[in-house]
């Protein structure tokens, strides 16, 4: 009996392990991944980074330009997040289980959110590139749509989690729909909502870099410009500036989270 138990456990582990190996082999084959090159490229990349990828004096002269573009990219990320959050809040309130107006609308807003969330920002930016061209609005709307989809789902979950009980209590006092929303749902879930918004600001700055590379705008464009012209010292300065910006914003939002949650 006991021997059986351990034998079975071992057999199961073996099956899972074999499956994993098989999937790995399959993935290596279809992606034409070169395992040896994978290992050797790491020391090579490290060596290259230390010998080429740092800012020199010439790169420093570009710093004002880089900072100006960075500020623009950060502002685009923030603006896209806040406006998307506003729309997402509306959609989440109308669609959540606790405060939703009806089942059909609820399913509808969930479906819309899923659609927007699963079309990647990369796809959005290419779609928008057709009409808006190499413009700051291309990046703005690409971020906006993805953020809207993500926040709608996140907000719905937060609202349901936090405010279900107090909504029941206020309904029992005879309060109307809008007073309940403004006196109970929003105050109760505000910290969670804000935490999601801050998370999305951080994420969007990373996404903005990617979108910039694809659409030729903002800090991402600057990076790919230097990168493609093999001006690695200036490119490294861009990376350093982005990392600094992201870390600062992360620090601020961690502080805010600590206080409010």
């Amino acid at each position, binding site marked *: 009996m006991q021997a059986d138990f351990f034998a079975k456990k071992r057999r199961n582990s073996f099956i899972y392990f074999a499956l994993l190996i098989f999937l790995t082999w399959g993935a290596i084959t279809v992606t034409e991944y070169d395992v040896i090159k994978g290992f050797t490229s790491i020391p090579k990349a490290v060596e290259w980074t230390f010998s080429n990828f740092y800012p020199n004096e010439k790169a420093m002269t570009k710093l004002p330009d880089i900072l100006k573009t960075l500020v623009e990219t950060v502002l685009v990320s923030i603006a896209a997040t806040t406006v998307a959050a506003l729309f997402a809040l509306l959609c989440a309130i109308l669609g959540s289980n606790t405060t939703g107006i009806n089942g059909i609308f609820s399913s509808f807003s969930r479906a819309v959110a899923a659609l927007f969330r699963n079309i990647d920002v990369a796809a959005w930016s290419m779609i928008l590139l057709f009409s808006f061209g190499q413009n700051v609005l291309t990046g703005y709307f690409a971020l906006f749509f993805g953020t809207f989809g993500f926040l709608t789902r996140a907000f719905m979950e937060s609202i349901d989690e936090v*405010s279900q*009980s*107090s909504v*029941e*209590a*206020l*309904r*029992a*006092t*005879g*309060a*109307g729909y*809008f*007073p*309940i*929303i*403004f*006196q*109970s749902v929003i*105050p*109760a879930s*505000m*910290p969670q909502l804000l935490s999601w918004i801050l998370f999305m600001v951080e994420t969007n700055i990373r996404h903005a870099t990617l979108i910039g590379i694809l659409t030729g705008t903002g800090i991402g464009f600057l990076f790919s410009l230097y990168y493609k012209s093999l001006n690695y010292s200036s490119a490294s300065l861009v990376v350093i500036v982005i990392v600094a910006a992201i870390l600062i914003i992360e620090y601020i939002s961690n502080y805010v989270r600590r206080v409010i949650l």
Partner: protein
Amino acid sequence: MTTLLEFKNVSKQYGHDTKALSDVSFAVKEGEFVSIIGPSGAGKSTLLRCINRMIDASSGEIIFDGANVMDFRKKELKKLRTRIGMIFQHYNLVNRLSVIENVLHGRLGYKSTLAGVLGLYTEEEKQQAYSILRILGLEDHIYKRCDQLSGGQKQRVGIARALVQNPKMLLCDEPIASLDPNASRIIMEHLKNISSSMGITVIINLHQVDVALKYSDRIIGVNKGRVVYDGTPDGVKTNELQSIYGTDFGKTVDEQGGQHAG
């Protein structure tokens, strides 16, 4: 005294074959303190929520203050709910808001949408909220956030929120189920006090038989969605308890007694 609430053959069905209430009939007089007891899942909570239509009964009549609440449209329903206060097992407060804000939530049903949205309360309402908090012994905590209160204090905030509605009746859904014995006693005394001195009718769902017997004017025993006992606390003997809780009752009572002593 006049009859305030009357159930006439009320049933509630979920889906096709789950009956939460079947053919429930009873009447409650003004100012009475009525306990509803019964095992978990007997339909106590559904029964209570049918009164203020948080749950809609499937059939029958529920007469409150001379009108059948089952016929009420949206506006009348809102008005009905302002006259019935409700108290919950998990207090159902907005934990991040202050005590005074949570109490004033009880006034929202009387306000226009705009005033409610903006949270504009009159000085009179604030003073009333304060007086009630004083009665409940919370006057030192009015600006505290509710998540800093103990369970018993939170439940008193819940009671204050219901009282500030100027209700004719209080519905209490397991108000002491999450509290320790001492806090439970304080809450029950407050409820009893409210009922006797303000003349507010109280209907309360309880798990603890001894508590129900001690405080109530009347006991309604519910089992499997049916009223199996309706009478004075004196009339509740082993036999009656067995019909409410099933034949294993002897055991249950010991466990509950033990819980209370601890």
